[in-house]
């Protein structure tokens, strides 16, 4: 079973339907035990870094993610759900950085581009041995964000350029994350979700 973590981050019904297309059973939940024990956990996220992190902590999601990382249980962060896996972020800060879950010890910062948000379909270039993008390396995915990670983490990466090059996906053992929205990326996104479900 796949659990989509519900911590007040927008509508998750269409995300649920997109993951169900893979054939898996999918629940949207904020229940700690279900989220801890699901075969796969999806951590979505929209809005600002700090607000997302507050919501996540509100349902104990930071501890759930850390526990799943420690146990190497498959976990997928999407968009700001990817960003809050990092050590910290500088979105709307006056000095001190907002702390993330800290799965990866790098920072999230503003994308250096003339037009923001980076909104629309963009391509990826893969480094490392990717399972997530198997058969999908030449596809486009749907992005909506103004902040991103710029440094490499994990064992396989996807990179995308908008003004500058940033990290658009990470695979690190059982932990994966995408800066784009696979659940909004048409057939390419559904295929990527299927790849992820196949890895569970």
């Amino acid at each position: 079973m796949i659990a989509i973590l519900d911590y007040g981050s927008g509508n998750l019904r269409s995300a649920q339907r997109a993951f169900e297309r893979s054939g898996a059973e999918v629940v949207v939940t904020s229940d700690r035990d279900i989220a801890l024990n699901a075969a796969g956990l999806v951590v979505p996220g929209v809005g600002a870094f700090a607000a997302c992190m507050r919501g996540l902590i509100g349902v104990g999601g930071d501890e759930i993610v850390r526990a799943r990382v420690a146990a190497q249980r498959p976990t997928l962060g999407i968009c700001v759900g990817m960003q809050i896996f990092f050590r910290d972020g500088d979105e709307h800060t006056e000095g001190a950085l907002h702390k993330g879950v800290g799965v990866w010890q790098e920072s999230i910062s503003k994308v250096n581009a003339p037009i923001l948000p980076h909104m629309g379909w963009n391509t990826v270039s893969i480094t490392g041995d990717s399972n997530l993008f198997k058969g999908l390396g030449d596809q486009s995915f749907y992005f909506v964000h103004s902040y991103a990670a710029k440094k490499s983490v994990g064992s396989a990466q996807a990179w995308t350029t908008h003004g500058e090059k940033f990290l658009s996906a990470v695979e690190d053992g059982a932990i994966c994350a995408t800066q784009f929205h696979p659940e909004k990326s048409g057939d390419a996104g559904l295929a990527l979700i299927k790849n992820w479900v196949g890895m569970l």
Partner: protein
Amino acid sequence: MSLSIRIIPCLDVTDGRVVKGVNFTDLVDAGDPVEMASLYNSEGADELTFLDISASSSDRETTLDVVRKTAEQVFIPLTVGGGIRTVEDVDRLLRAGADKVSINTSAIARPELIAEIADRFGSQVLVISIDARRARTESGFEVTTHGGRQSAGLDALAWVQKACELGAGEILLNSMDADGTRAGYDIGMITAVRAISKVPLIASGGAGSLEDFAAALDAGADALLAASVFHFGVHRISDVKNYLSGQGYSIRTNATL
């Protein structure tokens, strides 16, 4: 590669039905929004926009159902506009499955609404739709209401600037002079708005020939919205994208998986 330009068909919806149906023979029911959305998705639409033209609140409730059904079956971004006056209206649409909302008259009436929506849901959900025309204002363009029939008493460029300061995530610029003419987008207006805004710009109004789409992109539009040329089968979305691809623009090719 870089960010692709977006082609966005716009569907007018009321009481759960598409008002201007498509002229395609392969559709069972051209008035069914979900079927229309699926068709445009398979044609290569990069996003979808529903404009709710309902006159009554009961019809608006039906629109929520349409949004729900579409979002559960078509997995590309969906923007919904029309009749949105409060943060609660936005909340209902996002919960139904819309990814973005577009507001127009209600933002003119109460600009703080822009900040309220952006603060609550983030700028990325908010498209500011502006119906503008050429006029003797400071910039030469003014904002209109009532489908272009009335002046809002606002300079268009000043309004764009203010909307961006308040938290607009995207600008949808409709030329009321060009709308429905199929004589081309208002290139001067797109250029002027592009020069003062740093958020994505969607151009609308006047699309006729394939060259028109390219001209709007050259003027600085990031995305192109059209209704009648697609609905009446003047062009198919795939034709527009193939043409633009041939001209060297970055377009998303539909996944064949």
